[in-house]
């Protein structure tokens, strides 16, 4: 019965959105984390989503031929990795800051809090959608169980 795989698919969706919420929480929590060197400063993190394909059970990834095969139904979504934002950090002149370097500068992370909040709302809505999908599939399955009664 393919209805049961709806649970798996919506489950992978919820799991992926949870990862996204986690990175958002981490980014916002560290938005004001200062450091005296570029290397040690926190950088915004973002998850990269990829489709789980039907024949991917063995874990072999075919990212180039993702949608060549129409018959490949797709089995949900996965987080293929978390990347750090490589855009420029923000140096600020704060000589009184204990973390300031010898020129008096501290480095702030490249976290855009407004972007993160928008991302958080998007992730939360997607999570809700997947939860609703699961609920509807549950109702459909329960209905089937009453067949012939």
């Amino acid at each position, binding site marked *: 019965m393919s209805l049961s795989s709806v649970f798996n698919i919506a489950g992978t969706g919820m799991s992926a959105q949870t990862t996204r919420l986690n990175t958002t929480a981490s980014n916002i929590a560290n938005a004001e984390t200062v450091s005296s060197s570029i290397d040690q400063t926190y950088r915004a993190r973002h998850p990269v*989503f990829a*489709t789980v394909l039907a024949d991917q059970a063995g874990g072999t990834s075919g990212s180039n031929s993702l*949608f060549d095969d*129409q*018959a490949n139904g797709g089995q949900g979504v996965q987080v293929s990795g978390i990347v750090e934002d490589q855009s420029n950090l923000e140096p600020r002149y704060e000589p009184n800051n204990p973390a300031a370097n010898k020129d008096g500068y501290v480095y702030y992370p490249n976290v855009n809090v407004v972007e993160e909040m928008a991302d958080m709302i998007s992730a939360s809505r*997607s999570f809700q959608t*997947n939860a609703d999908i699961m609920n509807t599939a549950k109702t459909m399955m329960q209905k*089937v169980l009453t067949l*012939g009664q």
Partner: protein
Amino acid sequence: MGISFDKALGIHEQALNFRAQRAEVLANNLANADTPNYKARDVDFSSVLAAQADKAQHGSFGLERTNSMHIDAQGLSDEDGTMQYRVPTQPSLDQNTVDAQIEQANYAKNSVDFQASFTLLNNKFRGLVTAIKGE
């Protein structure tokens, strides 16, 4: 004369199966609503119906039964062949063609259609039970 379940239930069993499969495809679209480069897909009901009607006429895969002991190859189907990509309504930066609202609406409609197919199938079963009991 025995009761043939395949003939008694009509197309509703296949319709119920189709709705379940479509639920899977639409759930997959919604799970991938934020995946870059993902293309939304759907199953076309009319082409599946045409394939089923064709199969009912000519038999599955056109297999000939030359002996009365041969078993008819029913139930084997290739529904995935009718899967098609959705035409995007507006472009997106990450090449994703999932429109969450459209998919959600389709999923809700599919769920109602599933209940309709279920009710029709259930009525068929009730008819059979009434016929067997003879009350």
